[in-house]
């Protein structure tokens, strides 16, 4: 556990209110605190930019506490860092963590009602299991296939061959896609297989029919070859592994107990009711207003307005803790939510490395300056 806090933190201009952060109570210290992976042999602020010859270090040691973790869902706290970091992480998760998705479709026969581009687009949007995506190559810089993207290192081939010969409408689904590689299959099939494995009783998952691509009536046929490639969400949303990634500031709620005691029980109740979400409650024994769920607060200012309307400004003080974030990550299933976070950190680090390398080579901040105006 890394409980160090460098003295310089107190002087950090980016954290004017850092001293107002209450220390972590022992009971709140999480069981799993992971500190972000350190860069090799460079711990604390040893690597200072040569341009900035100051004694002040901006390096911080963010902490992560995982609250909930499932395959497709993950909720964690990120502390002791600032919004730029949290947002960078969020954006990388959405747009820059690579996955595999169908990118090239060769249609042999299509007598369905949907046209070729339509089907190609729909195929592209099917999420594929992409656990290997980090190790794969982008087809544009694949050496073994000269960038035409049809080799084992950068692509996975799929085949689809469906023909309807009954009077009933036939659904062509992701289950009809035949993959050349067992590790890259439509996500819903992988989930189904997993469910079948773990418990034979869960029919629910087994009955799912897969993602519908097109419906065929008698005599219609769809035959195609598709190539899935590695890509990132920035290029097309089909490569985004994230369904939703959000973070919120942790609220810091202080009730002015003295002022609160001047309210009658009915007034307290009315005040509590004024919040659209259940943040406060009345202790049935003591009649005191207590904060039950600070994270339910949506920064709507309703309680503050209510307090002002009641003639008690300053009844409650709510501030966002500017260095604590609560992340919610939902994955499409292409990679596990936890893996998504780790991959995002990896990608982020690679990007930073790229900046640093460029830095060392050219010592040129022109691009950065251009961005800063």
């Amino acid at each position, binding site marked *: 556990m890394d409980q160090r806090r460098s003295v310089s933190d107190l002087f950090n201009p980016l954290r004017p209110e850092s001293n107002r952060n209450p220390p972590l109570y022992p009971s709140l210290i999480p069981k799993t605190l992971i500190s972000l992976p350190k860069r090799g042999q460079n711990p604390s602020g040893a690597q200072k930019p040569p341009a900035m010859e100051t004694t002040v270090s901006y390096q911080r040691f963010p902490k992560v506490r995982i609250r909930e973790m499932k395959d497709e869902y993950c909720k964690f706290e990120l502390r002791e860092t600032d919004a730029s970091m949290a947002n960078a992480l969020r954006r990388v998760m959405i747009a820059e963590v690579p996955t595999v998705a169908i990118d090239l479709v060769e249609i042999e026969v299509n007598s369905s009602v949907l*046209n070729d581009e*339509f089907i190609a687009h729909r195929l592209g949007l099917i999420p594929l299991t992409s656990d290997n995506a980090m190790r794969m190559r982008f087809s544009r810089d694949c050496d073994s296939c000269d960038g035409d993207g049809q080799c084992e290192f950068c692509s996975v081939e799929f085949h689809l061959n469906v023909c309807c010969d009954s009077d009933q409408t036939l659904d062509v689904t992701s289950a009809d896609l035949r993959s050349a590689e067992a590790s890259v299959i439509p996500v819903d099939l992988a989930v189904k297989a997993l469910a079948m494995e773990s418990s034979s009783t869960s029919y629910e998952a087994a009955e799912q029919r897969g993602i519908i691509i097109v419906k065929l009536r008698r005599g219609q046929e769809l035959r195609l070859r598709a190539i899935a490639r590695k890509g990132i*969400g920035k290029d097309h*949303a089909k490569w985004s592994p994230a369904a939703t990634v959000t973070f919120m500031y942790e609220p810091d709620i202080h009730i002015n107990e003295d002022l609160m005691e001047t309210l009658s029980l009915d007034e307290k109740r009315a005040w509590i009711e004024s919040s659209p979400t259940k943040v406060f409650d009345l202790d049935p024994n003591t009649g005191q207003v207590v904060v039950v769920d600070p994270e339910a607060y949506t920064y709507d200012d309703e309680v503050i307005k209510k307090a002002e309307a009641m003639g008690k400004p300053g009844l409650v003080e709510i501030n966002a803790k500017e260095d604590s974030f609560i992340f919610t990550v939902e994955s499409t299933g292409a990679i596990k939510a936890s893996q998504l976070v780790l991959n995002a950190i990896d990608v982020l680090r690679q990007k930073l490395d790229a900046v640093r390398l460029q830095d060392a080579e050219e010592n040129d901040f022109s691009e950065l300056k251009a961005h800063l105006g």
Partner: protein
Amino acid sequence: MVAQESDPVVDYKTLTVPVKSAVDKFDLLPAFLKVRGLVKEHIDSFNYFIDHGIHKIVEANKRLVCVHDPTLFLEYKRIYVGNPTVHVDLVEQKITPQMCRLSDRTYAAPIFVDVEFTKGNQPNKQIEQRQRMQIGQMPIMLRSSHCVLRGKDEAELAKLGECPLDPGGYFIAKGNEKVILIQEQLSKNRIIIDRDSKGRVSASVTSSTHETKSKTVFFMEKDKIYLQLNQFSKPVPIMIILKAMGIESDQEIVQMLGRDPRYGSLLLPSIQECYSEKIYTQKQALDYLDEKAGSTGAARARIRKEGEARKIIRDIFLANVPVSHGNFRPKCIYAAVMLRRMMDAILNSDTMDDKDYVGNKRLELSGQLMSLLFEDLFKTMNTHALEHVNSAYSKSNSAMLDFTSVLQRFSPITQGLERAISTGNWDLKRFKMHRKGVSQGLCRLSFIAALGHMTRISPQFEKTRKVSGPRALQPSQWGMLCPCDTPEGEACGLTKNLALMTHVTTDEEEGPIISVCQSLGVQDLASLSGEEIHSPTSFLVIFNGLILGKHKDPKRFANAMRKLRRKGKLGEFVSIFVNDQQRCVYVASDGGRVCRPLVIADEGVSRIKEHHMKELRDGVRCFNDFLRDGLIEYLDVNEENNAVISLYEHQDKDLNGEKNEVDRKSITHVEIEPFTILGVCAGLIPYPHHNQSPRNTYQCAMGKQAMGNIAYNQLFRADSLIYLLVYPQRPLLTTKSIELVGYDKLGAGQNATVAVMSYSGYDIEDAIVMNKSSLDRGFGRCITMKKYSVLKEKTDRIIRPQNEQNKQILDADGIAAPGEIIRNHDIYVNKQSPKNPRDSSALKDQVYVDSNAKYKGVEGETTVVDRVLLCSDTDDKLSIKCIIRHTRRPELSRINSREERKRSGMEKGGVGGMEEGGAKEQKGMEEE
């Protein structure tokens, strides 16, 4: 909630009164639309023309007789229209509308006549008969009584390649769908009192009969009244006209106007003028008029024979009033009534007619316009045949001479009808009608656009500016014409749209109605003296603009007529209107009146009860049963003036518990559904009554631009350009109209989640910032399909490609293969034409030059050959149509891209908006 007895605001007594369950009459609407369809007025009108109108035209012109030999003749016995067919290689083949659309044909059916005729010029001729002689082809309106789609269910329509939601009501001319717009006109054969451009009070009648069309105007200038008629070179004093019609006594004239001395004094200057001209007798008057007759020069007037004026007065002056056996009396009385109304208007300007009043207007529908066109062409055909026979008779002594062969050889009907419909030019010299843009290509931008186009009413006059009267919303258009749906700008308020339940009447047989009137106690005009006509105890009865007689008890007469109508003994669209001010009862059965159904209420109690509605829901009762049982009736604009219509069932107390000011007993009708005052386009707006009114008007125009689905057969159509949405959605919120119209089945647009935030920077009006991921996932993705046609002349050839450049997408037959990606400069039909088309002898390769069709597209776009259609056109030439498809995603507002602007020279605005990651285009701009 705890009830507090002391609460003064709420009166609990009114709350506890049981709520009367109002009968929900909404179900009547779908029933109405099921019976009538959305464009019933077009179809009804065309059906009337095909089933009745055409017979009348032929009946009126049925005999052709050679001038030299009265025994050489032809008589039309019967006329009828067959089923839509087409001749292919001399074989008659049934056609469907979809076939016509795809192969550029006209959807038309043969017109047959049964004739009796004599042949040659031998002395004793045999009367021969001929059945089913074809004289031309009649374009058939879709879903009309002669259309193959009539009465077909959804599955059958699908088999014919037709969309079940398509309303029909348009024609297909040379493969193009054409709508004949509803034309708005001033009533024919009615007296209109108005101020003319010089501010004079005038009374005018536009007469229109099968024989003549004329306009008679009375006007007052310097206290004297004159008649203006095109046939007279100058305005003629009215007294002279009256004298010419045989009323020589001034006293009788004054009596005819009425006994009020004010009328007499107003007429005095006119009487004096007549005397100053020294005209006292009918003979003098006629001589005077003979002089004035003729619109050009005195030279021509001198050649005119005597009696010209008499002819004019008989046939042209107030042509709608018939003169039988030289009896001018009805005409005199009519003129007197006109004068009287004019004087009323002078004495009291409130009695002036309002030209913008919907009751003074008639809507001319496709049936009437087709009927005019047909009449003109039919007469042209007959006169041509007559001329030919007359000249041939005198020249040769051919025994074979007969009318049928001439008619077969020359028939302008097919050509004429087709040309008029496809160009929209109604040029009928015979009827002095020169109108352009009568028919328009049906707007297939979206389903709603097509529907909206069918209900459009084009204005009567040119779009003259300044005058605001005709543009203003008329109170009388309530329920008949949509108050919202009108374009902005030039045609604002002039172009209108029908409301949802409006019906436009067709002509009805007059004879039976007249006899009903007479048996109900209308005193005939012939038996009345001038004095008696305007006696203060009686009302005039006017039927279709003709004075029928007078009635002592107008209220009883009107009620009796209405009762007969409700019983079904009289046509359902006959209107009876008592005008207390003019002391007239107007009975009307003419075509072109707008009317709408209303629930009859006896002393405020609706006749429709819950059990009726239950029967309707159970399918035992249909809309026509309601009509037959006298629960519902049609009221036209005039008759609405005699009715008190409540929006909902009458409540004795309003919501606040206060007494309703309207007396229940005064209510005569209840509205079926209030929202039916809106038209098809305005019906799509949810909660329109919460909007600022121009917003609704804007939406009416914009709803048509929405992209989405056009019809169920959209992928099998060959329109020149179609825009479709890849993922169209149903609106989240539907209105009742949306369900009725079927918009929920053919939606246009997508439901977007929009966050609205006021913040500096993005506060540009009418713009939206879009999420790039949603565009990636298919939001706003659209398909455009464009048609490229190639006509292969008989001498041309299409050859197999030899692996040349730009010919990769061609099939072995030399035509592009469906499904191939087509790029700029690709050839899609590998056609060659001979250098000299006339030289057909040696067809060697050298003789031919390339005349292939090259695709011009935008570099970098992926367009695909969607379909290729091969068909032979009407000249038996091979027509090749390639439908080329392009799938597009919303792009950063194109107008901002300089590159784009250079390329296309300020294209029309694309999708306004920006994308988060759409930096490509922006980057492109920076680089320039």
